[in-house]
């Protein structure tokens, strides 16, 4: 049986509640870490029995948490100073983990990146981008809304190329994605690193197993493509 992914969520605010609930639905196991007793009690009453109340500014207490290398770390503290400090402390002790932080201003976004977060989601930047797109690119906005809507029809999907699949060893230009009704958007060519290469860059890559391709399409077409890609793969 495949191991459950584990996420450590630091901070149990209104925002982190919905993130925790979504991750739980995605079969993640979750541990909530809080330094505020009220939020800690809220986490417990919401059913997160693994929740821990600690002083998150104390390194010794963080080290006791036993965070594995493959675990995800989410820094969602409402206090911006604390969030930056926490990110820095965690990066110092968990050098290999993926750390994702939420930011509420451009200044703390920069600081969180400097502190070692792998991804920083700037709450207002995301919204500002969307307002900008509403004015400048209304169709793009509709499409993007589609991606983020729970009832989306068109979405992005990433596929890791399995060994011996029909794409293993294929040249991108020779693959007819139209046949599946989907658009090939980009590839992470593991031979070249983890950088995403967009399809329009016109570099004709050879696809190998382990590479990740990104496609955009209608949900049913993406599902069909996925089934075709993984067919006959043990």
């Amino acid at each position, binding site marked *: 049986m495949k191991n459950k992914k584990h996420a450590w969520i630091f901070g149990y605010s*209104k*925002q982190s509640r*919905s*993130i925790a609930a*979504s*991750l739980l639905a*995605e079969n993640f196991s979750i541990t909530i870490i809080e330094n505020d007793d009220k939020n800690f009690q809220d986490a417990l009453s919401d059913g997160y029995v693994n929740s821990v109340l600690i002083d998150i500014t104390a390194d010794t207490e963080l080290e006791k948490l036993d965070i594995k290398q493959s675990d*995800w770390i*989410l820094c969602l503290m409402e206090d911006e100073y604390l969030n930056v400090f926490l990110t820095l402390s965690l990066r110092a002790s968990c050098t290999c983990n993926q750390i*994702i932080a*939420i930011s*509420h*201003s*451009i200044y703390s976004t920069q600081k969180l990146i400097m502190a070692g977060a792998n*991804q920083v*989601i*700037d*709450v*207002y*930047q*995301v*919204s*500002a*981008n*969307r*307002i*900008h*797109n*509403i*004015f*400048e*690119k209304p*169709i*793009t*906005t*509709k*499409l*993007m809304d589609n*991606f*983020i809507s729970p009832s989306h029809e*068109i979405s*992005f*999907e*990433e596929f890791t190329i399995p060994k011996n699949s029909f794409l293993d060893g294929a040249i991108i230009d020779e693959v007819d994605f*139209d046949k599946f009704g*989907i*658009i090939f*958007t*980009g590839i*992470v060519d593991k031979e070249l690193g983890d950088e*995403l290469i*967009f*399809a*329009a*860059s*016109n570099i004709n890559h050879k696809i190998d197993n382990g590479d*990740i391709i*990104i496609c*955009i*399409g209608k949900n049913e077409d993406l599902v069909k493509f996925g089934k075709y890609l993984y067919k006959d793969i043990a």
Partner: protein
Amino acid sequence: MFSKYIVKFAFGLYNSKRYTSTKKFFYDLLENENYHYKKIVDIFLIILILSSVIELIYSIKHGVHGWLYIFDLYIVSIVFGIEYMLRLWVHSDMHKIIIKEYERSQFLKIQFKFYAAFIQILTEKWNYIKSPAAIIDLIAISPTYRELRILRIFKLLRYTTSIGQFINVLKTKRFELMTLLILLIFLIGTTGVAMYALEGNINKNINSIFDAVYWALITTATVGYGDIAPVTTMGRIISMIAIITGLVLMAFATSVIVSAFLEKLNEIKDNRLIDSINKEDRFVIICGYGQMAKMLLRQNNFDNKYVIIEKDPNIASQIAKDGFNVITDDVSRHDVITKFNIQYANVSILCIGNDDVENIYITLTAKSLSKDIRVIARASDISMKKKFVLAGADHVIVPNQMANIMLLTSIKQPVVYNVMHALLAGKHAAYLDEIKVLAYDGLIGKSIQEIEFKTKKLLLIGIQKEDHNDFIFNPPASTILEQNDILLIMGPKISVEHFINSFQRSLK
């Protein structure tokens, strides 16, 4: 019987679309600052005023030329006369007063009396006739006394916002200025009478009470022409008192006017900003200044066609220091949005403050004024979204929801996150753009296959056809492009720009 015909006539006008639209046209032409053609009429009238005044000045030394005389006496006067009559006409609706009076009489079951409505009509029109602008207009028409026509220059006051603002500022200090004026009249009167009593028979330059009052005014104003001077010791003492008191009064008057201007300075600045933004065909009103507004304006300053409305003067002053266009006002008030050209311009309102209640209220205020105003509102929580939709918001932004979706995508599908992030942020490597197929450009009539997007290093994501709102995702290669289709393409920014330029250059 007469009343019956009058009422019938009033209802006839009320129901006549042609009459209503004609009257509205002339109203817009003369009074609506936001109407494009008003500017042309204003310029025409300003040229007429100036040419008339120049003709008058020229004629003082050079005499009156025949054709200039005819131009000034007839053409200018006739145009001003027509303008006066039109302004008087559009000032109020006579037929509506008659109908209102008639309906009142019907409701109360009393006989309709035309004279009651007639008095109301006269009162309404008289209110216009006695207004300073209308008096100046009337004088400007009068051709009888030639020298009086120099007063036509005062008609320019209509078109000079600065003078209008100056008068408005003075109006706010009416009480203080009137008190000072009464004091000044009292001072001039008493010193003039005293001087007449003391030197009326001694001073050869004071021959009447008028000479004495004239001396008092010249002395109080500290002008001192020297044509009349006191000759007795008592007269000189009165002069000294008049000069010192005059100086004090002048200082008071100056301080009152300066303080009035300081108090109104922000309002004047705000009005200027509103006037300048109202000249635009489309503009954005931003309500609520915070992180989101800052980030948005860093990304898109809407070609400077925006204004932030902030009710807190301290925050407004900080916004101004940050270099953004701001006015201090409470946007939830009905009359604030009506200051903007919502009738003719394409207006978008961004309610992006962090208070849901206020954002909803502003949304409702805007939508109650005009359904055409586009409202983009920020909701603090997904549960509030429904309320914003009910209030009429065209787009609802829930920052936490969007951030959460991005965060979850970054965990579940990290590569997809990179794509979406690049697209949302408009990164150069993955630039998503919309290209409208314009009339006569090189794209019309071509099939998607012919355009060869792939060789141009572009991906065609889909097409929005003009005839139906549905977005066609990944359209077949045989699809023919038509005018007003919108292509959604993705690729490196440089490729997108090159594609747009190459097809726009091929305009036939």
